């Protein structure tokens, strides 16, 4: 990481040449679009966050279902709901009007496979998993051109598809010379997949040029590594309008008290760091923190919870009308549960995503239901 300032500036010079290579394979440079300045980020918590631990309801007797996995001293939100004690930062944002909660929320998926659940959340479909993601379809049908980036070596499904997107992660190894880079660009001229990937990598590296502080987070702190980096990339001049990052480690089948204390603390710190990194852009930012589904209302036999249905989502940012618990609450009485075991999915994740695309980038409802979320005609966007 020490050699960043030198090699990166070399790459920044190169970015122009690589952009030309990108044009040669009929793409437009990822960051060339005029930007409204509004930002939209989606953070996917992979493994199914236990929404009832993150946002414990106080109107129902949750402890009757799960006496051994109750977080102690939750932070009060309203007379009906509280936040997990490790989410102090989020609590501050909520009370300051910069964060809201959507509870009992789910994608249209009603099974309990992590992998299909995530695929459906990301592809934005109602039944069969589509081959492209809803954010990629949004890029294709945006009223004004938008650009997007994800953190990590692989493109997540939510951004996959015909529209070009960037990916970025902190460099680990020393870099190749600019000349080698240019020659490789030539060699990839007839290879659309590799050619456009390389061209975008060069541009993104330039955009991330001052990220010398990245990668200093604790080993294994995925949230701490990814979220502030995403915010810094997006906040850069001509930075992408849309960003995606993923954080794993939520599949709390056993010993969930300790697991969630750690994971939520790191997430909380990373969300606050995100706000810092966004800086002035925070005022025009909406961030959704979502997960593929919730977990069983009843604890299992190993001080944990198994795969469920309704979960919780966090919305934050200066462009969020915060301090609200949005949507409906289905209750925790036995008759209210989904299939007798899960928090019922009273709210739809797509209502959040549709609201964000509408409020931040001016997508019309008809455009959203036609291309971005086919089959979502009955879903009413929230006001967030």
């Amino acid at each position, binding site marked *: 990481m020490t050699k960043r300032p030198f090699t990166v500036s070399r790459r920044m010079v190169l970015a122009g040449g690589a952009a030309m290579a990108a044009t040669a394979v009929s793409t437009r440079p990822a960051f060339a679009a005029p930007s409204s300045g509004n930002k939209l980020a989606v953070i996917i918590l*992979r493994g199914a966050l236990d929404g009832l631990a993150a946002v414990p309801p106080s109107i129902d007797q949750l402890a009757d279902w799960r006496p051994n996995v109750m977080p102690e001293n939750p932070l009060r939100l309203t007379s009906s709901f509280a936040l997990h004690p490790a989410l102090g930062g989020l609590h501050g944002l909520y009370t300051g009007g910069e964060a809201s909660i959507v509870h009992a929320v789910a994608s249209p998926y009603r099974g309990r496979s992590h992998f299909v659940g995530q695929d459906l959340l990301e592809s934005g479909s109602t039944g069969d998993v589509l081959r492209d993601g809803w954010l990629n379809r949004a890029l294709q049908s945006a009223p004004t051109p938008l650009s997007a980036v994800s953190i990590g070596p*692989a493109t997540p499904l939510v951004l996959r598809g015909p529209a070009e997107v960037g*990916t970025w992660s902190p460099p*680990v190894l020393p870099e190749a010379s600019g000349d080698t880079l240019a020659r490789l660009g030539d*060699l990839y001229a007839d290879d659309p*997949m590799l050619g456009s990937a390389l061209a975008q990598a060069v541009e993104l590296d330039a955009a991330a040029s001052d990220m010398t502080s990245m990668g200093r987070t604790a080993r294994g702190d995925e949230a701490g590594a990814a979220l502030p980096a995403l915010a810094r990339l997006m906040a850069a001049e001509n930075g992408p309008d849309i960003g995606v990052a993923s954080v794993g480690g939520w599949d709390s089948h*056993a010993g969930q008290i300790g697991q969630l204390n750690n994971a939520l603390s790191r997430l909380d710190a990373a969300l606050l760091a995100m706000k810092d990194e966004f800086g002035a852009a925070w005022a025009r930012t909406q961030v959704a923190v979502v997960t593929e589904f919730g977990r069983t209302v009843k604890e299992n036999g190993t001080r944990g919870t198994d795969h469920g249905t309704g979960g919780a989502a966090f919305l934050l940012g200066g462009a969020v009308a915060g301090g609200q618990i949005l949507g409906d609450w289905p209750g925790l009485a036995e008759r209210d549960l989904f299939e007798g075991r899960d928090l019922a999915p009273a709210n739809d994740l797509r209502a959040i995503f549709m609201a964000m695309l509408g409020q931040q980038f001016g997508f019309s409802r008809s455009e959203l239901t036609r291309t971005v979320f086919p089959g979502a005609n009955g879903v009413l966007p929230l006001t967030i």
Partner: protein
Amino acid sequence: MSTTQGAIAATRFGLGARPGEIAAATSDPRGWLLDQLKRTAAVSLAQQPLPTGQEGAAKVVEYTQLVRQQRQSGDPDAQMELQRALRSARRDGFGRELIARAALAERTDASFNERWVRFWSNHFTVAITQPLILPLVGPYEREAIRQNAFGSFRDLLQATSFHQTMLVYLDNIRSFGPSTRIAQRRGVGLNENLAREILELHTLGVDGGYTQQDVTEFAKALTGWTIKSPPLANSDIGAVTFEPRLHEPGARTVLGQRVSEGADQASAVLDMAAAHPSTATHIATKLARHFVADMPPQSAITTLSRAFRDTGGDLTELAKAVINLDAAWGEEQVKFKSPDELLVSTARMVGSTNVFGGGQARDVYTSFGQVPFYAPSPQGWPDTASEWAGPDAIMKRLEWANLVAQRTPSDIAAGQFLDEGLGPLVSADTRQAVARAESAIQGLTLALMSPEFQRR
């Protein structure tokens, strides 16, 4: 027969050509691969002094007890010291395991067999999600996967499901029959993780036609399968055992069939799952994706699925069906190498020292996002280009290729690398770019990064 078939045998079906291999495979590419199936013992790591699953599990049990005792005695220094010793012991064993495994992949002359093993190891993924699992992943691959990858699918499924590592990884050692006395006294109960993943990932597949009820009942059948440890057992520590005191009693119905009570109950469910028609389709689809294309044609899936069913899941016969699958011999290279495939195929050409440098293996794997035995979920590593060929991944590969080229000063010239590693697969453009490179290092960097070497 076209001239590229020998190169395809070595690079697409094998783990990448070693010098001389393409020439050796060219006269009879399919025969060259089928001949490897007569030498399946080549996948064994038995000549290495590596621990068994039981030894690994016994160590874990012993460590856990020592830590508990130290904690009770309350001496913080002794506790730290012990933790440190445990960590280094675990790391050491794991390191030797990775080296032995990498050396085999680098040098084997039966690399189709090794690819086959790795396919199944990924299908039945275990991953280091907690320190306890670290000393167990190597024994798992050697004992459950390598020993059964050429036998029957049924045996492979039984071996993986009842191995110490899988029982730990998917929480079965912590799943208790809810009505058992132990569960009631300790306030513990069922954990359905293993049952769900066996049905969803290892056998029928997510749309294979099972229900939540099947998962729950199967989970109950699996209760009792655990690792021998005090206080329930005092001998044979670390062995896998069926402990009736933890098992949820009773006959039950799973996948529409009645299974009677007893120690064989879970095993009977596994046999039903292995024989289920959805399992044949699920396995065939993954194999076709691995050997034909990310989105394989239905005809290829049907052929392999039929081979699976007709042979009762005989994996050597299934391997032959893969080798004899015409669709897998397409001229165009459409499979983008995963990071692990790229690293192994490079090591087979330039040697692992040049691939990783001194002690940097972990950094390389980390920057590529594919550290062995750290798959992100029980689903294992992805097998499609869309997961591996993002902009950032390409840049990381380039940074690495540049380092490899710097470390390989005169061992192999770029032109020779192309001839021996890719042979007739090399395009005129690549040959020209490499020939015109400004230096030998740049030439080899471009050869490593060429579209032909990045794919298989």
